[in-house]
């Protein structure tokens, strides 16, 4: 067994106790990447020297009795869009292939302060704008459960690398499902936090009203450990909430489902759904019931309308950020990225501002209606079978909007609604591929989600499943 098969929490505990060193962990990660990445293309840049130097620094600190932090010595790789002073940050693009920012993202700074070791950059959809995992510039990322299938995106490398045990966890970003989808398609736990819970300073922007940053991990506790490290106010990001973070790791360590009212969202979330995928959702519901949760049917209303509001915000914001490059070097974009950005040009200013203006009311109406009936809402994270890479490799050709919509229809509403969403694997597989449920809660309800999810994880044990891999 490789040290990479440990959970993040166990890896951190092992370094802390002296069972092994951070250097041993980091060397194991580098070996695993060398063995598995050729088949997956999840890691686009390994920074071995930096990682080993970071690991040695942690080991030296521990050797003299110093505090190494809750993630002390654990190597982590991240979606390649989090800035580090002087470090390459490609954003999965040709345009920023050589970009080296001169400051560090708050989330990376905080992970470092918690003792994590930076391992490298992970593949992603170009500029985080794509739900499948295709990338025309760095090559398509592949799913470790079956390399013919997509990983989900846009945090494709974060999903693939974490599931393939090349990293203990990874940061992703989520503007319409980009953390939850790769977590779901790769059999992981993925959290999109409440809109303002995590700082976005030093994070590549796509749509500043909808962008969020969060972790993809193999277990609930691992996820909570990473969120604990990165959540909280930030003087460099005035949009980050000043509300104090809850104790997420304590919540993950005190699982409870007894008496929790789980709202079952049907209607919109079942429409166009695949029977086997929905059967997996039902198996998850049965598991929750078995551990003491109460299931209640909840009418969530028409999410299609919410999605149109998200589109009216995301399109113009993305087009604004990319306007200069779209004018001066349009051919440097991939087809789908360019096509989706161009739609944003055409919305009127009144449309865009009307959507933003109405957002607080829509969020309040939704929360007051739904969370007066339940504590946590449950829906599929995606309700179709995992597509193959070849059948969704259509660039901006006919049908690309249908592919985008079918993959992200269950995740996109939560971004406009600002709510936290936690993707969790279901008890079984569909045609050998993971399926997933999504739990959501009122704003800043992340601890509530972790407590419930940890009880489910203990019951279902999905984290014991290992994707079939070759190349070791």
């Amino acid at each position, binding site marked *: 067994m490789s040290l990479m098969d440990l959970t993040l929490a166990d890896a951190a505990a092992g370094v802390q106790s002296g069972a092994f060193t951070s250097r041993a962990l980091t060397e194991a990660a580098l070996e695993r990447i060398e063995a598995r990445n050729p088949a997956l293309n999840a890691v686009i840049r390994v920074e071995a020297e930096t990682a080993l130097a970071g690991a040695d620094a942690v080991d030296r600190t521990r050797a003299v009795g110093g505090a190494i932090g809750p993630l002390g010595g654990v190597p982590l790789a991240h979606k390649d869009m989090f800035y580090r002073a002087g470090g390459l940050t490609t954003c999965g693009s040709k345009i920023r292939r050589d970009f080296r920012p001169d400051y560090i993202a708050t989330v990376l700074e905080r992970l470092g302060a918690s003792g994590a070791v930076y391992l490298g950059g992970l593949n992603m959809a170009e500029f985080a704008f794509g739900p499948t995992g295709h990338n025309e510039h760095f090559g398509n990322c592949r799913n470790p459960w079956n390399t013919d299938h997509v990983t989900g995106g846009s945090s494709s490398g974060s999903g693939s690398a974490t599931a393939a045990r090349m990293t203990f966890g990874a940061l992703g970003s989520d503007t319409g499902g980009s953390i939850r989808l790769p977590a779901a398609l790769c059999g992981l736990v993925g959290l999109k936090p409440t*809109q*303002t819970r995590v700082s976005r300073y030093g994070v590549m922007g796509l749509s500043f009203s909808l962008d969020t940053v969060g972790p993809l991990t193999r277990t609930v506790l691992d996820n909570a450990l990473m969120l604990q490290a990165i959540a909280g106010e930030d003087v460099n990001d005035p949009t980050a909430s000043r509300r104090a973070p809850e104790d997420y790791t304590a919540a993950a360590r005190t699982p409870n489902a007894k008496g929790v009212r789980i709202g079952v969202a049907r209607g919109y979330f079942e429409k166009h759904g695949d029977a086997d995928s929905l059967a997996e959702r039902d198996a998850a519901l049965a598991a929750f019931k078995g551990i003491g949760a109460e299931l209640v049917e909840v009418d969530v209303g028409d999410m299609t*309308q919410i999605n149109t509001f998200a589109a009216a915000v995301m399109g113009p914001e993305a087009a604004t950020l990319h306007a200069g490059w779209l004018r001066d070097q349009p051919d440097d974009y991939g087809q789908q990225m360019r096509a989706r950005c161009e739609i944003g040009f055409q919305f*009127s200013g009144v449309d865009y501002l009307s959507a933003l*203006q109405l957002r*607080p*009311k829509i969020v309040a109406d939704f929360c007051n209606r739904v969370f007066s009936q339940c504590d946590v809402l449950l829906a599929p994270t995606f309700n179709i079978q995992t597509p193959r890479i070849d059948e969704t490799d259509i660039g901006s050709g006919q049908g690309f909007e249908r592919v985008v919509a079918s993959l992200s229809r269950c995740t996109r509403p939560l971004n406009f609604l600002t709510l936290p969403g936690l993707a969790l694997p279901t008890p079984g597989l569909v045609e050998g591929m993971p399926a997933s449920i999504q739990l959501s809660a*009122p704003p800043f309800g992340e601890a509530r989600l972790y407590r419930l999810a940890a009880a489910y994880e203990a019951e279902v044990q999905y984290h014991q499943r290992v994707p079939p891999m070759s190349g070791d």
Partner: protein
Amino acid sequence: MADETPKFPGYALDTAAQARAEKAQAVFREAFANLAPPSLFDTEPQAIETALNKLAGDVAP
């Protein structure tokens, strides 16, 4: 004679984007008509953080 002035001078935008955007805009405006109050005059988009805190306080157990 048709007006040949480009809508976005300097850009080579795909004509398909225009059609997609018109469709998206029409869908948005219909949804807006269904959800919006008669006037947005007293609404405030920057109040989102206030709204989130209020909701967290109001509905958290």
